[in-house]
């Protein structure tokens, strides 16, 4: 039940070497069979969410862990207890000479800018933020594109024509989720009503639960959450409603959350492949091809999308999703980044 075991996603770029290593009985494996040791060190700093929030931060950590275990580099993370910890935590890695330092999340943006400017020789990468410095790779996602696709699923599958969106903190990243989601629904089901609720936190499962409870009680049958651990509460509530005989669904976020919460309540998930981005950029460092600058990953780049398996989504709906996915990919549809009601 520990979250770590679920990390292996069918992922195109993952080196195949990883699979056999995992299958050999671990205890007596001689060191020789492990991938070659490397003296490269990659660290990451999280905000206060921590590395097992069942979504964003966890995804990042799992990506780094998978990459580290596969490539034999050293890796570690530091969790920040308060805002003022970001800079010292980044600096801790800098001072000990780590080769690449990740900042996980939008909230680290300012801290990273400052530390990156003060340490031009160190290399940094940030997820979900843009840091304009010559030694930082900024990885952002087109969440609105992925959210559009799950919006299509929701719009086609809702029976009550009432759909909920639970957001964490009201920040641009999360607004992109909402914007795409609304747009996707509108594209296939203009009559559906969307109720939104920002809880103001990424770590308050109780609030997520209460928000979901009101939405379901007021007739929504599908809720999409983009709220980190707050979203756990949405799943908990859905499970309860399901047990009481109501036909309700949750659309997960960041990872394929059906793995954690089961297919009974998880309709599908909006995958945001933070883990893969972590691996790709980290790999570029090992290869010596690390390039600072902005990478913006959307459907075309395979950075966002639906999971491989969607047992709860009928084929015709998936076909529609594919159709829209192609349209977005080829630029026929441009999804807005801020919510339009």
């Amino acid at each position, binding site marked *: *039940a*520990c979250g770590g075991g679920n990390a292996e996603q069918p992922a195109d770029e993952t080196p195949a070497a990883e699979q056999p290593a995992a299958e050999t009985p671990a205890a007596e494996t001689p060191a020789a069979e492990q991938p070659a040791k490397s003296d490269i060190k990659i660290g990451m700093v999280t905000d206060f969410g921590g590395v097992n929030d069942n979504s964003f931060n966890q995804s990042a950590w799992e990506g780094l862990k998978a990459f580290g275990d596969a490539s034999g580099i050293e890796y570690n993370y530091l969790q920040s207890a308060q805002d003022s910890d970001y800079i010292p935590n980044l600096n801790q890695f800098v001072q000990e000479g780590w080769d690449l330092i990740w900042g996980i999340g939008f909230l680290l943006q300012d801290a990273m800018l400052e530390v990156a400017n003060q340490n031009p020789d160190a290399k940094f990468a940030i997820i979900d933020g843009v840091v304009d410095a010559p030694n930082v790779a900024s990885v952002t996602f087109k969440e609105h594109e992925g959210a559009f696709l799950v919006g299509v699923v929701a719009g086609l599958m809702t029976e009550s024509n009432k759909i909920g969106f639970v957001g964490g903190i009201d920040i641009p990243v999360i607004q992109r989720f909402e914007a795409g989601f609304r747009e996707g629904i509108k594209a296939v089901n203009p009559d559906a009503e969307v109720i939104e609720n920002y809880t103001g936190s990424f770590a308050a*499962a*109780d609030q997520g639960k209460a928000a979901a409870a009101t939405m379901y009680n*007021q007739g929504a049958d599908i809720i999409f959450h983009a709220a980190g*651990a707050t979203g756990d509460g949405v799943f908990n509530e859905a499970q*309860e409603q399901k047990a009481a005989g109501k036909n309700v669904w949750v659309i997960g976020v960041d990872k394929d959350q059906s793995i954690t*919460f*089961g297919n009974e309540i998880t309709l599908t998930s909006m995958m945001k492949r933070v883990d893969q981005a972590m691996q790709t950029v980290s790999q570029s460092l090992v290869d010596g091809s690390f390039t600072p600058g902005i990478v913006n990953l959307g459907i075309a780049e395979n950075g966002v999308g639906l999971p491989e398996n969607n047992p709860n989504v009928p084929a015709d709906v998936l076909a529609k999703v594919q159709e829209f996915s192609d349209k977005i990919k080829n630029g026929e549809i441009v999804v807005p980044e801020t919510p339009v009601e």
Partner: protein
Amino acid sequence: MSGWDIGSDLIHITLVYATALMFGALGGLWSERSGVVNIAIEGMMTIGAFTGAVVTYFAGSPWIGFIAAAVAGAIFALPHAVASVTYKADQTISGVALNFLAVGLGLYLTKLIFDGQGQSPNLASGGTSLMIAKVQIPFLSDIPFFGHAFFEAYPTTYIVLALMLVTWYILFKTPWGLRIRAVGEHPKAADTAGVNVYLVRYMAVLTSGAFAAMGGATLALTTTASFSHSTVAGQGYIALAALIFGKWHPIGAVAAAAFFGVVTAVKFLLPYIGLGHVPLDIISMLPYALTLIVLVSFIGRATAPLASGVPYEKGSR
């Protein structure tokens, strides 16, 4: 949405939300009525949430977890009793220590047990929920409005309401209660009347720990589904406020906790009454601002049990 549905839902969510606070406030009541100030409700709830989540995870039953939490809460309260009763410590300071200890211990042990993770595994994950399930009282839950509002709730809500009555009965109708109240008002009088002041205070503080911890377990087992740093997150202090607000009376304290529940639940229902666009911060501020206004304008002076906060030293004047 009809106003009735919203009203019914408001009560429903209030009860879900306020249950843990009610446990906490009743917990504080036991201790403070015996003259031991308890600002450690927060810590006791934290330990309860931790124990409830972890024991449930391993034992596979939320009720085992719930009971374990009560026991753990009582044990955790012991140092507070030792410090404030036996060693005549400043009770506020001892409470502060316990609050720090609870967060430290809870997260340290979580990380130790779960391989460095700062959060215990989600109890509702993997398809089978280990959470406490809501009950629907047969027939009653079918009544329009009232059914959903009152008779479709977590058993913990009914437990805490029952415990409120039990607390009231013990406190005001039994010899034990008479002694607890006497010790809280005038320990020396109780002592000279042959009441063992120390024993009464020890028992009261331990009971306090058990009650508050049940509140923490309620959070973990009915709402958050796991233990983490944000499970209790200040609700112990709100429970303390409810206790004072409720003027140290079991029914008052529970009612005050319910008041907090209502003002919090309103936050989630605003979108349905056309107030969805009020800024989130203003909405979030609402429960606290309303409480403050009510306090300052209507409630006013509340007097704590006379001897609360004063260590009792046998033989001093």
